[in-house]
């Protein structure tokens, strides 16, 4: 019989997180100290070794990214009416494209504001998966793995929280704004890495505010102490190992911290809010920026409604009216605040949609070639990788797997995709089984 695993005290968890943090920044520190060394030498610049070092420091991103903002287009957006148009072909079925700030790169006509910022963005237009069902597709794209009954793989945001330091962040570090049925989850890393679910930032953050005034709350906590004393009697050690008291304390900290205001976008200038768009999703994107400023590791913002089995063009145009201002303003805002280089922005859904338009003028599920938009985090920008077939076939140029996207983003975050965690059935599971995309990691954007 195996011995029972007792819950690891939170303090220990913290120690582990800090150790990881040190590891994480080791690389940066090394490069900096090399540079300083070279600089101090003055004449040392003349030596070939110093030159080599300096060049390496230039080539590598100054420091790995710190956070992810994941714009989740729930339902599966059409690649043709978003970021991989094929204008003037049969499969376009009348959809038009516009030029962007990157010469030769076209996107759908309903994204004029994003078009101006295309030099900050990269598109992977040839992502392929085998999952054409919403639940399975969402799992695939968020975790980088196909669903498997024996293990629940962690979402990329959970990995990010697990690997990067906690720092001084007292609010949830994995947040899902306007979640659909399948927000990011910790899976084998544990439920503490599940995304904290919250809704339109106009409303209050759920469950954060006490229901009674402070003096009455204080009395309630005194009452709680009486009950905890009774429970611990005769089982001090076991009661301690439940961590219940510690969690209550940390929850109370979260209720009182100033950082919680990051959820509240009403503090932002009206002009900026208008640029993001006065929609739940636009406000969600603005809240996402405020949250990562507080050290939140992953914010998922969901825009639902892309499952356009009927009236595809019309519905996509309407959704673009929400997505275009929110996404473009988010990128510009991050850039302006010098946050873009340390934030990876991902925008995609669970799959694409069929090149063939169906009888209801809709498009159906199509995992055989869809687009993932990436920006920031030191990833190369201004390029479009891969291509779908203008005739509507399943063959794509430079097919890219979902795990490869995960490996790329993890690498940008300074996390080793090959790192293994042990699943409940004792099977080692890598963070990602894909290879990072060299085209996107090749230089700073």
């Amino acid at each position, binding site marked *: 019989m195996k011995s029972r695993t007792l819950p690891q005290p939170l303090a220990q968890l913290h120690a582990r997180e800090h150790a990881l943090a040190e590891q994480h920044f080791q690389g940066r520190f090394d490069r900096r100290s090399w540079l300083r060394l070279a600089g101090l030498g003055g004449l040392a610049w003349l030596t070939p070794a110093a030159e080599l070092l300096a060049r390496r420091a230039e080539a590598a991103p100054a420091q790995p990214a710190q956070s992810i903002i994941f714009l989740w287009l729930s339902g599966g957006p059409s690649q043709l009416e978003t970021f991989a148009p094929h204008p003037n072909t049969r499969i376009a079925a009348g959809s038009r494209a516009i030029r962007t700030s990157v010469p030769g790169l076209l996107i759908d006509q309903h994204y004029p504001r994003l078009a101006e910022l295309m030099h900050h963005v990269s598109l992977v237009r040839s992502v392929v998966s085998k999952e054409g069902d919403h639940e399975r597709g969402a799992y695939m794209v968020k975790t980088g793995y196909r669903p498997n009954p*024996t293990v629940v793989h962690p979402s990329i945001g959970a990995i990010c929280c697990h690997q990067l330091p906690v720092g001084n962040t007292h609010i949830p570090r994995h947040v899902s704004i306007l979640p659909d049925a399948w927000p990011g989850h910790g899976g084998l890393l544990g439920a503490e890495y599940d995304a904290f679910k919250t809704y339109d930032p106009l409303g209050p953050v759920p469950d954060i505010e006490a229901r009674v005034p402070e003096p009455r709350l204080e009395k309630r906590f005194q009452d709680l102490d009486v009950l905890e004393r009774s429970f611990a009697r005769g089982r001090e050690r076991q009661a301690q190992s439940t961590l219940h008291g510690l969690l209550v304390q940390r929850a109370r900290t979260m209720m009182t911290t100033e950082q919680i205001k990051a959820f509240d976008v009403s503090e932002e200038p009206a002009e900026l809010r208008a640029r993001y768009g006065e929609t739940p999703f636009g406000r969600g994107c603005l809240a996402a920026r405020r949250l990562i400023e507080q050290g939140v590791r992953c914010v998922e913002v969901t825009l639902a409604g892309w499952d356009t089995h009927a009236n595809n063009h019309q519905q996509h145009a309407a959704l673009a009216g929400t997505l275009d201002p929110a996404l473009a303003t988010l990128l510009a805002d991050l850039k302006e605040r010098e946050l873009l280089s340390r934030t990876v922005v991902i925008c995609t859904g669970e799959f694409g949609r069929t090149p063939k338009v169906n009888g209801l003028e809709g498009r159906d599920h199509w995992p055989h070639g869809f687009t993932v938009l990436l920006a920031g985090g030191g990833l190369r920008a201004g390029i479009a990788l891969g291509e779908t077939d203008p005739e509507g076939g399943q063959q794509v140029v430079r097919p890219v797997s979902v795990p490869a996207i995960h490996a790329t983003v993890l690498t940008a975050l300074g996390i080793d995709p090959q790192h293994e965690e042990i699943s409940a059935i004792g099977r080692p599971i890598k963070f990602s089984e894909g290879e990072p995309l060299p085209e996107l990691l090749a230089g700073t954007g």
Partner: protein
Amino acid sequence: MWKRNLLFALVAAAGLLALAGSLAPTRPPLPRDGAPLAAQQDVAFRTTLTRLNQAFREAWQQAGIKPAPRADELTVIRRLSLALEGTIPSLEELRQFEERPAQDRLNWWLAGIFADVRHHDYLAERLARAYVGTKGGPFVLYRRRRFVSWLADELAANRPYDQLVRRLIASNGLWTSTPAVNFLTVTIVPDNEQGVNERELAARVARAFLAKRIDCAECHDHPFDRWKQADFEGLAAFFGQAENSLRGIQDDPKAVFEVEEPETKSRRRVEPRVPYRAELVPAEGTLRERLAGWVTHPQNKEFSRAIVNRVWNLMFGRPLVEPVDDVRLDQQVLPAMDILAEDFAQHGFNLRRLILLIAASEVFQLDSRSDPADPAHQITPEHEALWAVFPITRLRPEQVVGAISQASRLETISSQSHILVKLKRLADQQGFLQRYGDAGEEELEPHGGTIPQRLLMMNGEIVRDNTRENLLANAATQIAVLASKPQRAVETAFLCVLTRRPTPEEFEHFSARLRQGDGNMAARMEDLYWALFNCSEFSWNH
């Protein structure tokens, strides 16, 4: 036009009348009768029980440890209701319980549980998680709710467990009219035309029915267990003839199971083969019938061990062997495992008998703390390893919300309850699980919960809504109004929420609280309920 309006008015009036009718007289509670259970506890039953108790006592003696004292009765019935119904006893039930003569209380309590739809539904859901998981699965081809309610019906009829499993593995037909086949159709991936997934089914059968984690051998030989890749493929081949058609799942006797070599892409035929004790495979029947015959064979000890471990886990919150679905072929197990497994196989694979045996055992009725009469008595990790103390385990999310709903009513919420009460409970449950999280298939909860869960309990809508001043709906307010004096109110609230009476210290503290302040008893009771809902004792089984 007026005709249609009149018709509408009539329909509406009839609806209102029906509602009022079901509001007025509450039906009497289900009759509970412990006598038939007592009759089942024959000589063989008592012999097994004695062996079980003896086995644990010997182990404690050898290790030189003194077990925890016996738990009080209310603690034991709280455990039973949580384990078997996913909720806590109501005040109404507690009062009835305490009126029974002492010797038949346990049987009387269990008889009530076995007859209760809440038990069938809860057990069905727990088992379904092991059988088909929690995912939505393929649209149209898979009906999870249909499957769970079929399972609940089978459990209500106390179908012998071997028959139940044979139906799961070997049934043919449509997922709607033969709900058992959902066990197969859940593995179909829409759009890929490959039908049922033989490999996933092999993994499920091994884990759910035999507690074998053969899945590790899916791609390579198991690194530290005996399983070879050929074992896995051989088991999968038993599902090679199951085809999905317009008539649902059917067998195609001509079909053969092939696997593709990942490197050469060449296809290789695989013959059905069981990984051990091949002599138990019946000679007759379809491939799936033969597999089902082997899995459920009375001499296939692994089958009985697997369900014993699962039911033990259900009752204690912790299995005899961890994890619950990984009992190795050659594993050294505590004698209790085989004592129960043998009794199960010899007495018609009767799940209720198994539950009854565990509930009646000494270990199930031990306290979860040290002996208060003996200051030197300490509970050590060795006590926990040898079951010399009842384990403290975190309640599953559905148990927590079930307990919140029940504690907020004085009368029992059951299938007999008014439709509005049941609807409210359902709505509460869904809203709560959405924020608290759902444990999914995960049986073990080694982690101590999460901060958002604590926030939900402290500040969430459901706790607030079920405790605030509302004389019609909430027990907290009703107690505030009806209790003759503060001590009485405190005692009733403790019984409703924690299924126990307060200690002297608690009596004193909370009675004083109720007397204090502005005389707003309802608000003071809301505070008391808040503290009771938020303490460790409420969220943990003990």
